[in-house]
């Protein structure tokens, strides 16, 4: 088992899948140069299957749909915020096409989105919009948080016959971890318990998993045992693992870097309130970004999104209730 970075794990997954399936190709803006730190060097091996596009997100994200509809398996890379420019193609075409046409066509597309926050990029480059896509049936939504999951989930995403929204939290890009050798694929719809505990369950998403694990270390010293659950895919969502954990601990905190209203934290909270209500011993706590845009100033930005302290405070509140 090799220790590699999150970005290198993604690179490996893309390379391996492109080697084994010649219908896989990748396109995006300045990806041959590897602007997102993942795809650099791919064009040397794969040539024309690595395509630099013009700044036309609506055009090339829609082109991915057409290519997939006739037998290709496109991977599209972009910054999460640029999805806004392509929303019609993502929603009206990628998400709806299969159903609307009565299942005549499979659309094996992976849209890879780089999520930025906490690095002073200001409001236009700081979007964590996976909950919006969770509200749009037809898309599968993946949020890996370790190098092993990044590789294993991306390989599954590329092999899946449906459009996948694959969110890569930029705060994890340089993090390192062990990645199993060989053909390592992680199934969708299977949450991972990243840390076992007995007093409170923290379901954490994206970069909040690492922060929840640090919070758990701190809380352990205070005598609070935290279980950290990483859903890994939010569509499909592994409800069973979350409900089982809450049944054990009786307390739930959901940590999500998305804006709080209608976040994945909201959805998971509602699901547990409805399906696991009698196992709860305390009110559910949502820890998410404030419903406020991300300001540029370093003095202000850090106040918007959740951190280790906010997660720890929520866990303490849940345990004290």
């Amino acid at each position: 088992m090799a220790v590699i970075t999150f970005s290198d794990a993604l690179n490996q997954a893309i390379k391996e899948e492109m080697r084994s399936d010649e219908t896989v190709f990748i396109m995006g803006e300045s990806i041959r140069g590897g602007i997102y730190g993942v795809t650099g060097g791919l064009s040397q091996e794969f040539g024309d299957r690595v395509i630099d596009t013009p700044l036309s997100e609506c055009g090339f994200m829609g082109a991915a749909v057409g290519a997939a509809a006739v037998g290709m398996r496109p991977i599209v890379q972009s910054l999460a915020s640029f999805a806004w420019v392509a929303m019609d193609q993502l929603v009206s075409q990628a998400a709806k096409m299969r159903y609307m046409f009565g299942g005549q066509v499979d659309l094996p597309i992976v849209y890879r989105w780089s999520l930025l926050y906490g690095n002073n990029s200001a409001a236009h480059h700081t979007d964590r919009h996976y909950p919006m896509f969770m509200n749009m049936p037809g898309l599968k939504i993946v949020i890996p948080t370790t190098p092993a999951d990044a590789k294993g989930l991306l390989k599954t995403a590329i092999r899946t016959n449906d459009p996948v929204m694959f969110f890569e939290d930029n705060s994890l890009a340089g993090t390192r971890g062990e990645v199993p050798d060989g053909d390592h694929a992680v199934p969708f719809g299977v949450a991972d318990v990243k840390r076992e505990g007995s007093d409170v369950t923290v379901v954490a998403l994206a970069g909040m998993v690492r922060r929840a694990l640090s919070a758990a270390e701190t809380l352990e010293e205070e005598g609070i045992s935290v279980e950290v659950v990483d859903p890994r895919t939010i569509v499909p969502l592994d409800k069973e693992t979350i409900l089982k954990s809450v049944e054990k601990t009786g307390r739930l905190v959901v940590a999500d870097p998305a804006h709080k209203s209608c976040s994945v934290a909201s959805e998971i909270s509602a699901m547990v309130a409805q399906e696991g209500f009698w196992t709860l011993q305390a009110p559910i706590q949502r820890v998410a970004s404030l419903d406020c845009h991300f300001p540029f100033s370093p003095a202000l930005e850090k106040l918007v999104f959740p951190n280790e302290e906010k997660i720890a405070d929520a866990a303490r509140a849940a345990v004290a209730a």
Partner: protein
Amino acid sequence: MADATGDKELYMRMLRRMMTIRRFDETVKDLVQSAELVGMAHVYIGEEAVAVGACAALRDDDYITGNHRSHGHPIAKGGDVRRAMAELLGKSTGFCKGKGGSMHLADFSIGILGESGIVASALPVAVGAALASKMQGNDRVVIPFFGDGASNQGACHEAMNLAAIWKLPVIFLCENNQYAVTTHFSESVAVENISDRSVAYNMPGVMVDGQDVVAMYEAVREAVARARAGEGPSLIEARTYRFEDHSEGLNRIIRDPYRTDEELEYWMQRDPIKLHEKTLIEQGIATQEEVDQVGAEVAVAIEEALQFARDSPYPEPEDLLTDMYADMIPIS
């Protein structure tokens, strides 16, 4: 390239397809009137020569995409009118098992990659299919059909630029029926002709009489030959006219008359089916009896299609969630 002038088999096939579309959409109008057809319906009456001439220049394995006004395109491409009618009535035997309806006909088995109700939204998709043709090393071409209104969408311009820089086999076919609902294109297009926009994308742009099915066929055939030869995309503007309002029932809402009687009359005189019939007879390609015979056969075929649709079952409640995903997941 062989001269198509007077090719009887081709000319009669185009007549039959135009008549089929006309009869189909006349039936749609009746079904809307009697409330048997629910939802929105946009008929193609008056514009038949565009789709028929264009699709006559395609092979079965070439691709097309359409828009909200697209009952005609699948019929022109050789789609089964029975399944088209069944789809419009929301029946399980329809192209899309009743899940798409009037604005979303598709038959991937013969290259009909589907229709988008969002104007211009299918153009990037068409470009993607063409990109696949190039990557897969086949010579299939793609025709996205779109209107004058769609030519003002960003998606249209991004699609044209992508096709041009990548030299993709796309024939952008703008059906300029002159009105985006009630707004004349001269109020919304900054150039005189939509075909002029090709200059910005370094591709040939031609204007064709969209009422003349033979002219359409010839123009598209030339663009298809270029595309197959790897010489890249073209833009064809078919100047045509929508004989009916934007959608069925809209005449009850629209209060400001946006077209003059004279204009309507002028274009009705240029009915593409009547013009083609005249060509057939004047050039001695077919007799009036042969033309009438096609009309009679088409009427029977559409009646049969309607009967097929009426006799077909609706989808069952258990069909609701199928087709959401290829690799199914729980749906709550």
